[in-house]
């Protein structure tokens, strides 16, 4: 989006006309001054701003964008919110229906003793990173005993579903984002290099992509996860090196999802390569590396962003799919796929605990839906020619 397309706006053009007549008589220096003054009236409308203007008119995409921003903020700040602890088991409240009144209550008994508090937080929230721990302490300080009621009900072990959804959103969103970024880096470098070098290298690199394309990865991934959870040797080794399923997932997704990205990027690079600014860069002796990463890659941004917003939901879906099958995120960590799975597992004809199914599905569905809408909107905004394709 870094490229600006200078555009004469009408007022500037009207003023510029008489200036041009006078310019003929003036000296060289004055001519340059004139040019400078003229240039001041010319505003470049960058592709980004242009696209933003178009996007703002698309109310569905904007609603999706706002929803996603709010959701991400909330999920980052989850430890700060006065939620019930997601891991505290409360068997008397097993499958408690959603309660909304009172919305907040002073029912969380924070012990005054430092050690007891630490133990309680550990049990309720598990081991947290530095940032989350800091937020959590802040929450204890600010809200004290206040906590939100179980507005989404409780699950099989009486744990608060809303709180689990919020903590699960951290995992689901992070997985979607990080894994997509991994695939982005690989895909863009691969595609840009292949497209730029062209010829035999391009051919070889793309045949490699074609080959990988033809492998049905989901089955191979499930097989891989089977292998990696072998309990006697592999699992302990992985645990020892702090590699859990989420990390494996990042690697695997990074390895799969870059394929389409590299194809898209390569196509774009091949068409960009013919442009004059690349030739100009080559003429003044820029290195190939510099041309690829400084001149080509920024021009690919629009197509990459569109593809990104469409990859994130499919990655999240893949994570949910694996977690749903019990092959993804492992308890006590939560993710939306895992929660949806828990919901499906407790379906019984005796009594309907609708909230354990509906709320995780709603969370996952709404997020995926918004991402898709935003992706479509971005595509239309960044490249109006593609509209309704």
């Amino acid at each position, binding site marked *: 989006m870094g490229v600006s397309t200078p555009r004469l706006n009408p007022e500037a053009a009207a003023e510029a006309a008489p200036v041009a007549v006078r310019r003929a008589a003036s000296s060289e220096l004055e001519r340059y001054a004139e040019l400078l003054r003229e240039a001041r009236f010319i505003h470049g409308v960058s592709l980004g701003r242009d696209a933003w203007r178009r996007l703002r008119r698309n109310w569905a995409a904007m609603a999706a964008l706002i929803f996603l921003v709010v959701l991400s903020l909330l999920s980052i700040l989850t430890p700060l919110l006065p939620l019930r602890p997601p891991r505290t088991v409360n068997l008397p409240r097993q499958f408690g229906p959603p309660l909304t009144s009172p919305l907040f209550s002073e029912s969380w008994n924070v012990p005054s003793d430092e050690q007891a508090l630490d133990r309680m937080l550990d049990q309720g929230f598990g081991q947290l990173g530095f940032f989350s721990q800091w937020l959590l302490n802040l929450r204890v300080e600010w809200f004290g005993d206040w906590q939100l009621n179980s507005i989404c009900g409780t699950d099989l072990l009486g744990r608060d579903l809303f709180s689990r959804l919020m903590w699960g959103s951290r995992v689901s969103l992070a997985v979607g984002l990080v894994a997509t970024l991994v695939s982005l880096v690989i895909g863009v470098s691969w595609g840009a290099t292949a497209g730029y070098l062209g010829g035999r290298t391009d051919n070889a690199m793309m045949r490699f992509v074609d080959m990988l394309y*033809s492998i049905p990865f989901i089955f191979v991934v499930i*097989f891989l996860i089977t*292998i990696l959870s072998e309990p006697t040797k592999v699992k302990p080794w992985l645990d020892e090196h702090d590699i859990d399923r989420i990390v494996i997932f990042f690697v695997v997704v990074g390895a799969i999802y870059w394929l389409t990205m590299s194809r898209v990027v390569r196509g774009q690079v091949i068409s960009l390569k013919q442009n004059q600014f690349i030739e100009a860069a080559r003429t003044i002796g820029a290195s190939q590396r510099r041309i690829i990463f400084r001149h080509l890659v920024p021009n690919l941004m629009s197509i990459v962003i569109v593809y990104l917003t469409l990859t994130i939901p499919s990655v999240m879906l893949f994570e949910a799919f694996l977690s749903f*099958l019990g092959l993804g995120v492992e308890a006590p960590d939560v993710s939306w796929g895992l929660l*949806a799975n828990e919901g499906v597992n407790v379906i019984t*004809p005796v009594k309907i605990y609708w909230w354990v199914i509906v709320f995780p599905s709603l969370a996952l569905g709404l997020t995926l839906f918004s991402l898709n809408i935003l992706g479509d909107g971005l595509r239309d905004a960044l490249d109006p020619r593609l509209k309704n394709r």
Partner: protein
Amino acid sequence: MAITLWAVFTVTFLLMHSVPGGPFSAEKKLDPAVERNLRAKYNLDAPLIEQYFDMLGGYLRLDFGISYKMADFGVNEIIAQALPVSASLGILATLFAVTVGLTAGVLAAVRRGTIWDFGFMSLATLGIALPSFIVASLAILLFVFVWPIFPAGGWGRIENLILPSICLGAPYAAYIARLSRTGMLEVLGQDYIRTAYAKGLPQRTVVLRHALKGAILPVVSYLGPAIAGILTGSLVIERIFAIPGLGAHFIQAATQLDYFLAMALTILYTAVLYTLNFLVDLSYAFLDPRVKLS
């Protein structure tokens, strides 16, 4: 295709054998003598390369070996039992996706800009965004418990098939609806459609006889990915509805570390996928005379 199958076979084989311990290192230790006998019987002490060719030969003869976890069952028997179940589910889901998707797409295109168009397309966007297991859980909630018209799960009767195949086909129906709408709109704007109208044909004939054939092409080329998706989707659907198909076995094999079964099913899925894709390509050539088979 053969090359890809071979590649998948080799990769899975190497992965399987790169795991230290092997199949007998479960928590419950086997009697050493028994283990030795088993190892001898299945040639597990032979050098890797020999095992590799042994197994490759077995696969070529369609003998997929034994299951580690299920007593009395060879992988072949499991497949023989589960394949028809999964196949009927998959075929029904595909049929559902194509018929419903095409109808909705064509209707939306013909009545462009009306409430029908908007309704179908919003539904389609929703269907594309929602994963099949969410559709399935909500469907169970609605049609099994709240309004009990379908059984919750199991296998054997016709009713058992309906809800799973609808849930499995739904996302693809949505995508096909969108594709066929776009394709139809494009075709409807062409000259030969105007000619057809001009010579006084009723709309029905124009749409069904003249336009549909052109509009169906993007749908056919999407069938390949759709079939792949339905195959993977069947993993979750079979689990949710407790259907004893291949997907259920595959997941079970994966969670219980039944390597041989998992490997055989991986290969089988790959083979099925390729065969179906090949058929789709063939049908493409029949529908569009401009495409030449090479």
